[in-house]
């Protein structure tokens, strides 16, 4: 309800939260945005958050907009209101918006877009799985019926799920390579080189001109980190996400600025909590012993050169369930770890198998093996080809695995991703009566009640040592001093509108 209140208060104001420059000022300026991943399908139904987000944002506007601090404000939809049961969402649409091909933005467009998203094979299609039906009620009203309460739904409308593509172009072959939307820019196909650089020129009929900071945006696709560093140093890009941090001293020496946030967590998931694979991980003391045996500072150094924050919790700092005091719940204490092992009856230690893949990072495997070995746990690595790593983890084939996973900026989405019983990344489908209850509360509540439940779940998961996290990993975005950047909590790179001339 909190979010909705913010929106109704802002109903009257057309461009809340957008502090831009006048179109005249922006006209001659160009932003060269370096991206580390190429777009594989330009249709809005295949839109993505993360590294590819700004590309889609150039062409498509979303129904709602999320600001860097997490607040959700109106965009193409002026309001989004739930019914009491929270299963029917009604959207009121902005009037007079046109797509760049001349089509009008109406409820019919929204319906077509949402269905295309849900029924397509884009990576995020399952985010719309809770949609039971979507209907147009009049030209500017849309009614969405959900099959179950979905706390993530409204926030998802600020992402690709809410992106609006010109209806006539949906599903056409051309749209796969050339986006047509109602967004701030239009792709200049003549000057674009697919796979290398995409040039976007200002959309003359864009409704929110004030939000646009640049006349032209060029996206340069650079997948090799050294090439990215070279591009920054030679001035060919204004900003880019860094994949390797070892070049940072050299970059800062050259005057490049770095913005940091902790997006991913890196650590071990203890899969066999129920003991169905027959490993000793069934015993919570063993799991806690593992947590005490980890020298998180060293691991941080090894894996990420110190770029991150050691932690014992998996919730992100931008999550409402975050509890700072839980960061050091398990200090590095070999004696305590050994004691726990002894208490559990495994003084002599045991052997456990774990999947390993070279492409995800060379040196981390040795460190894990060493540290667990120090308390008597012998890690028997199974070398798995990169493409089979996920399959083997998720089958599940191993009682524990190491992974670096992102944490969704939406808490419910995060839970569905990692913690609920049928979460993809909870391969053993583990849960207890306590965790079930807490999750249920989170799903059906909001506001302070929801926050309390989230924090409780966090603490429970930490105390029960569902995981053995190493650290929250830094994400670093590099940019020239001539641009100003505001990071988007929970997204790998800043949203397009949050980069402006310094």
């Amino acid at each position, binding site marked *: 309800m909190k979010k909705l209140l913010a929106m109704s208060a802002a109903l009257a104001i057309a461009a809340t939260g957008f502090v831009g420059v006048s179109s005249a000022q922006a006209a001659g300026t160009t932003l060269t945005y370096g991206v580390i991943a190429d777009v594989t399908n330009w249709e809005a139904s295949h839109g993505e958050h993360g590294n590819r987000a700004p590309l889609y944002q150039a062409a498509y506007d979303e129904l709602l907009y999320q600001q860097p601090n997490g607040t959700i404000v109106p965009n193409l939809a002026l309001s989004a209101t739930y019914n009491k049961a929270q299963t029917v969402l009604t959207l009121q649409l902005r009037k007079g918006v046109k797509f760049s091909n001349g089509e009008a933005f109406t409820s019919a467009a929204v319906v077509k877009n949402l269905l295309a998203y849900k029924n397509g094979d884009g990576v995020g299609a399952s985010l719309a799985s809770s949609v039971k039906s979507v209907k147009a009620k009049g030209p500017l009203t849309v009614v969405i019926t959900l099959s179950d309460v979905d706390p993530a739904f409204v926030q998802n409308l600020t992402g690709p799920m809410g992106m609006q593509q010109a209806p006539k172009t949906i599903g056409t072959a051309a749209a796969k390579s050339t986006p047509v939307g109602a967004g701030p820019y239009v792709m200049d196909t003549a000057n674009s080189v*697919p*796979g290398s650089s995409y040039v976007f020129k200002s959309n003359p009929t864009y409704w929110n001109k004030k939000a646009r900071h640049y006349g032209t945006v060029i996206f340069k696709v650079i*997948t*090799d980190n050294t*090439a990215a560093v*070279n*591009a920054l140093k*030679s001035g060919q890009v204004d900003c880019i996400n860094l994949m390797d941090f070892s070049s940072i001293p050299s970059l800062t020496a050259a005057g490049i600025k770095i913005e940091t946030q902790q997006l991913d967590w890196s650590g071990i998931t203890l899969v066999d909590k129920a003991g169905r694979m027959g490993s000793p991980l069934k015993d919570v003391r063993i799991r806690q012993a593992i947590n005490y045996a980890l020298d998180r500072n060293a691991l941080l150094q090894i894996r990420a050169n110190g770029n991150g924050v050691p932690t014992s919790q998996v919730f992100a700092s931008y999550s409402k369930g975050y509890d700072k005091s839980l960061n050091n719940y398990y200090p590095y204490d070999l004696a305590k770890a050994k004691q726990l092992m002894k208490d559990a009856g495994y003084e002599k230690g045991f052997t456990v198998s774990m999947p390993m893949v070279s492409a995800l990072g060379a040196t981390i495997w040795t460190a894990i093996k060493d540290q667990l070995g120090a308390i008597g746990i012998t890690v028997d690595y199974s070398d798995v080809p990169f493409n089979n790593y*996920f399959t083997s983890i998720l089958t599940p084939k191993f009682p524990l695995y190491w992974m670096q996973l992102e944490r969704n900026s939406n808490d419910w989405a995060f839970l569905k991703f990692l913690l609920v019983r049928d979460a993809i990344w909870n391969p053993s489908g583990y849960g207890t009566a306590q965790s079930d209850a807490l999750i249920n509360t989170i799903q059906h509540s909001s506001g302070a009640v929801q926050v309390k439940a989230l924090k409780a779940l966090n603490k429970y998961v930490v105390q029960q040592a569902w995981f053995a996290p190493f650290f929250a990993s830094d994400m670093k975005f590099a940019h020239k001093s001539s641009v100003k950047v505001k990071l988007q909590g929970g997204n790998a790179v800043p949203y397009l509108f949050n980069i402006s001339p310094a």
Partner: protein
Amino acid sequence: MLKFIARRLGTGAVLLFAVCTLAYFLLYLGSNTIARSILGVQATKADIARFNHMHGLDKSFLESYWGWFTHAVRFDFGSPWTFAQPVTEIVRMRLGTTLILVTSSLTIAAIVSVILGVTAALRGGWIDRIVQFLGLLGFAIPNFLVAFALVIVFAVQHKVFNAVGWTPPGTDFGEFVKSAALPIGALAFTSLASITQQIRGAVRDSLQNDYVRTLRTRGLSYNRVVFKHVLRNAAGPALSILGLQFVGMLGGIVIIEQIFAIPGLGSFGVLATSQKDIPAVMGLVTVTAIIVIVVNLVIDLLSAALNPKVRLA
């Protein structure tokens, strides 16, 4: 002559079929993990099943291959799973890019190495030794290091050329030169080594022939015998060398494209293969096989033109 070409194209077609079948088979073997790696960590089991079904991965090998094959013979290579453009268009665009790079580099390398190789073979002595040494140097230094050195000097320290990116010559010729100079430099330098060595060898072999001396006995000067006869006879082997180098460069360019973020066939190959994007990979395999067959045919035709002994049987 026409019969020869027809025959070669015929065997080439069979070869192409064999290569495509083999490649498809290898890809199909590992196809159970494709959905997960393309859809990413977020995908549910349902997502994966849908992906597999949509792309025919739940069919048998023969069914699946037949589906691809029947479209391919009509030049319809379908849509890739991880790229935005249709296969034929991507291949066309990227092939053009790669060909521009390869032919430019090869031309430069060929010119320089012919000069160096011939000089070294004819003069011998210290020039020969220096050329061989430089040749070895180019051979031993990995091309990405050469590329990197070039970038440091010409793009970072002195912003003369581009460190990354690609502009086609048609779009803006000035920008094209800026984006192509360094990759071509790196490619040419490394292949220079190998070509020079081999041309030197070919010229030396040609020099050993008896008729070289016999022509001298007729009163022809050394220079004349060398430039008219020796080099002429070395041209055939030299051409084969260049042909091989061309095909080899298609492989070596992969790393260069990675370093300079150039959207060519090489980087396409790496991306497509690592993601096991079957339509894309098959498009690549087809095009590469065709290139090899065509280049070999052209080389054979040129060799026959140069060497009367070679009969186009």
